[in-house]
């Protein structure tokens, strides 16, 4: 019946596809089909060159009701960190090497949880604002929806993204850069909530606390709270995923990811930083002289080539390569991205996708004709403030190897004659 007919058709098609592709002299890919029009297809039954999906009905609508990626993209998933002592205080990496454009799909958004993902019923959830305010207030989720809300596109990057690069550079972009994602967030400006409660003049800092089993807490300067901070309840058009803070999270554009406290339940206004564990013993950078840099809020400008990327291979041999990557800055917009294909001796302006938004990922591209000889490629971003992404050498000279957080150096990838791509700094590269 249909099934067996389809099966037979697929077998025949696959045989012809492989044959024509092989005769076309290229690896499996679209070119094989085009080559089928050449004499190689001579003597072939016409029906075996018709793609089988054209010969049978496809699936009905809403299969499944919540859509999922194609069955041929099942390997595009987050990579869970299996090197932490517990999976509950751990993180998972966004597969940057498999993504396109500048928006991260919700199911691939990186995670950093400090004691698991809670299941929170929105009907039982509220945000308390208290401390140095005129009137303490409790906002239910329904209350939140009464405020005028806005939607904005912002990246989130873990403070510890690329921390491997300080001391043990990773051979794989997933490990070295995957704690980075970007989404459109919808929510209420935090300033609007604070205005309802009325901040007293002595109120300078706000403690944000999560309703998770870590009761995650960070101190937020009042200037940031009144500037562009969001109380976000939706991401890329749908309500937040559980692991992104459902039903509501703080979103601090451009700031290190952990400050955008997920599962937000409490905002306490105070006159000084609260000195929580996550801003003293963690998320502070140890300098060579034994002092530490604290309150390193803004994620500095950074860029990385995601295709081709360390851990991958250029298939198909020498020829035209579409170099592509991501650039971002916690300080504002990207002004310029330069790409090198000769190990940093010379740099060339990359094309930037539009729109270029403040504190959002920007996709850059540069075509390159690879001649098949070993090469080192890298990208370097300049943001609108004039800040230029530093080299690893400059970063280590200023902050030392134990800083652990805010690694934003240029990431050079080495391509060998076989097309294998590695991190220049990784052991054995």
């Amino acid at each position, binding site marked *: 019946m249909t099934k067996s007919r389809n099966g037979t058709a697929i077998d025949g098609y696959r045989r012809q596809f492989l044959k024509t592709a092989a005769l076309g002299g290229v690896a499996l890919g679209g070119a094989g089909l085009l080559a089928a029009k050449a004499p190689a297809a001579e003597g072939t039954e016409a029906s075996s060159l018709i793609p089988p999906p054209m010969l049978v009905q496809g699936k009905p609508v809403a299969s499944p009701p919540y859509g999922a990626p194609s069955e041929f993209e099942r390997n595009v998933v987050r990579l869970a960190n299996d090197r932490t*002592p*517990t999976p509950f*205080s751990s993180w998972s990496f966004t597969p940057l090497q498999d993504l396109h454009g500048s928006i991260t799909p919700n199911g691939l958004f990186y995670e950093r949880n*400090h*004691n698991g993902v809670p299941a929170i019923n929105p009907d039982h959830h509220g945000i*308390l*604002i*208290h401390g140095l305010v005129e009137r303490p207030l*409790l906002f239910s989720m329904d*209350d939140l929806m009464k*405020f*005028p809300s806005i939607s904005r596109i912002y990246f989130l990057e873990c403070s510890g993204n690329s921390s491997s690069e300080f001391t043990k550079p990773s051979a794989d972009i997933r490990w070295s850069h995957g704690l980075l994602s970007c989404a459109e967030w919808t929510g209420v*400006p935090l*300033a*609007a909530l604070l205005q*309802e*409660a009325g901040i007293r003049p002595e109120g300078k800092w706000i*403690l944000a606390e999560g309703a998770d089993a*870590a009761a995650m807490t960070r101190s937020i*300067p009042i200037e940031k709270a009144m*500037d*562009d901070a969001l109380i976000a309840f939706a991401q890329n058009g749908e309500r937040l995923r559980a692991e992104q803070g459902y039903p509501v999270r703080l979103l601090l554009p451009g700031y290190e990811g952990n400050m955008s406290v997920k599962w937000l*339940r409490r905002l306490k206004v105070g006159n000084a930083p*609260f000195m*929580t564990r996550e801003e*003293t013993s963690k998320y*502070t*950078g*140890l300098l*060579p002289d*034994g*002092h530490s*840099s604290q*309150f*390193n809020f803004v994620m500095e400008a950074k860029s990385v080539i995601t295709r081709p990327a360390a851990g991958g291979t250029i298939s198909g041999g020498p020829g035209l390569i579409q170099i592509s990557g991501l650039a971002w800055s916690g*300080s*504002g*917009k990207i002004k310029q991205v330069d790409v090198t294909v000769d*190990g*940093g*001796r*010379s*740099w060339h*302006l990359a*094309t930037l996708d*539009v*729109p*270029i*938004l*403040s504190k959002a990922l920007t996709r850059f591209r540069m075509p390159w004709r690879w001649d098949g000889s070993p090469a*080192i490629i890298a990208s370097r971003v300049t943001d609108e*403030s004039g800040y*230029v992404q*530093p*080299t690893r050498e*400059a970063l280590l000279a*200023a902050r030392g190897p134990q800083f652990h957080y*805010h690694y934003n150096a240029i990431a050079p990838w*080495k391509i060998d004659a076989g097309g294998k791509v590695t991190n*220049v700094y990784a052991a054995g590269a």
Partner: protein
Amino acid sequence: MSMPPVRSLTVIVSVIGFLSGPTVTAPSQETAKETAKSPGAQQRLGIGQTPTDELIKAWNIDIAPDGTNLPSGAGSVAQGQKIFADTCAACHGEHGTEGPMDRLVGGRGTLDTKKPIMTVGSYWPYATTLYDYIHRAMPLTAPQSLSADQVYAVTAYILSLNRIIPDDAVLDRNSLPKIKMPNRDGFEHTEAPRGADCMTNCTPLDPQK
């Protein structure tokens, strides 16, 4: 406490030209600040409920560096030793040094060496943070399960292992904030280094070349 400058984001529309790309007009990314200042938001909207004092008290669990909000109760090093063995040692080791989770003890004098050991004793600037964190988040499998007395006791034990308080110490809301941690003055704020925008004849990136 000084803090880093927060960049003003009030530039709304700008025209950016790229040497190699098209000239684009960036779309408006109106800031939240401006929205909050719009006419409709100038006055209170009357949204939100007045929380009961009971709810505020129950949720208000953070402990300030000066000890504000510390509860009544007390705990000794000896009491803490037993609680630590039963509740904490499985993850932090019998002596607070073995792991697999964060090392809690030792490391004094190592922060400026090539192998710094960052622990409660060598790194944490405030003893009050220890109370705050143990109460809110420890143990991982049962956060907020320890009583105030128990949290004071475990805090005392960890500080005694680090030789910051004597073995016969008892901690409470008065004594805990008075403890000066060894790394209390170890924190500052530094700016990130900047790169150079060299385009030709630049220094190669590969350290081997």
